[in-house]
């Protein structure tokens, strides 16, 4: 079996305010003159190293974990999953 690196980014949906992102933008970026930065959203990054026969199988395994173990909260989170 080969090893695949599956990267998962969790962030809050646009509808939910992100006070951490807002604070970083307003109290760090804007204060230091980065006026073109319109918005910052924070999130969580998870790196899965998965043994699998192919990309499809690796992705399937990670999605199964994400869903079954409620690694993300579908009410507030959106997901971005990519694989190498």
């Amino acid at each position: 079996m080969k090893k695949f690196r599956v990267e998962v980014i969790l962030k809050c949906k646009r509808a939910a305010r992100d006070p951490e992102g807002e604070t970083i933008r307003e109290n760090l970026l804007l204060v230091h003159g980065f006026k073109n930065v319109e918005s910052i959203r924070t999130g969580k990054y998870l790196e899965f190293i998965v043994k699998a026969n192919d990309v499809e199988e690796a992705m399937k395994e990670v999605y199964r974990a994400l869903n079954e173990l409620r690694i993300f909260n579908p009410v507030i989170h959106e997901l971005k999953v990519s694989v190498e």
Partner: protein
Amino acid sequence: MKVAVLKFPGTNCDEDVLHVLRNVLKVDANIVWHEHFKADSFDAAILPGGFSYGDYLRAGAIAAHSPSVKQLELMDDDCKPILGICNGFQILVEAGLLPGALLLNSTLTFICKWVHLRVEKTDTAFTNLFKTGQVVKMPIAHKEGRFFADERTLKRISERIVLRYCDENGRVTEEYNPNGSTENIAGICDKDGNIVGLMPHPERASEKILSGNFPDGLLMFKSMLKWMRENE
């Protein structure tokens, strides 16, 4: 002699520190909003604990960009005492005034308890009234207090370790390392010993009614006064 107790948005131990300075030690001290702080108006500065800017990004990371940091650097030029307690320590580390980093506790939890500490270094602005190897007791209350430094940094700062977590007899063991800190480090100082950062809260161990090991915490503030008198 006048001491500044710096306040950032989210600082919450400022009143406790002020109480010890004003009411216990009868020292002239003021809580100063971080944007109004001027180095030449004060002889020492204390950065108290709390959750500056909600601990967003990393604990202390946003406060480390406050204009007050420039003023602290000016104070450092004059070798004036600067103490970072808990979140204050995190701010000093993020600002580059002290080496290393403070990471999430190895337990992944907020830890609030009394710990024993061994005083490793006594030629600092905040430990000159202790004896080397003395075991003291103070409370910790943090979630991001795991001191980390890579091997190269550790080698460079080996003479700047001020406090280590230990057992009641002063033995430094992994069992008595509450948060997974590298080499049980609880507090460090800069190269001149006038800047000290520590995770434990000396202001919570500065009165008999609060501390079974009185006056362990108070001695840190008394050390500061001694340093100030000698450097006047």
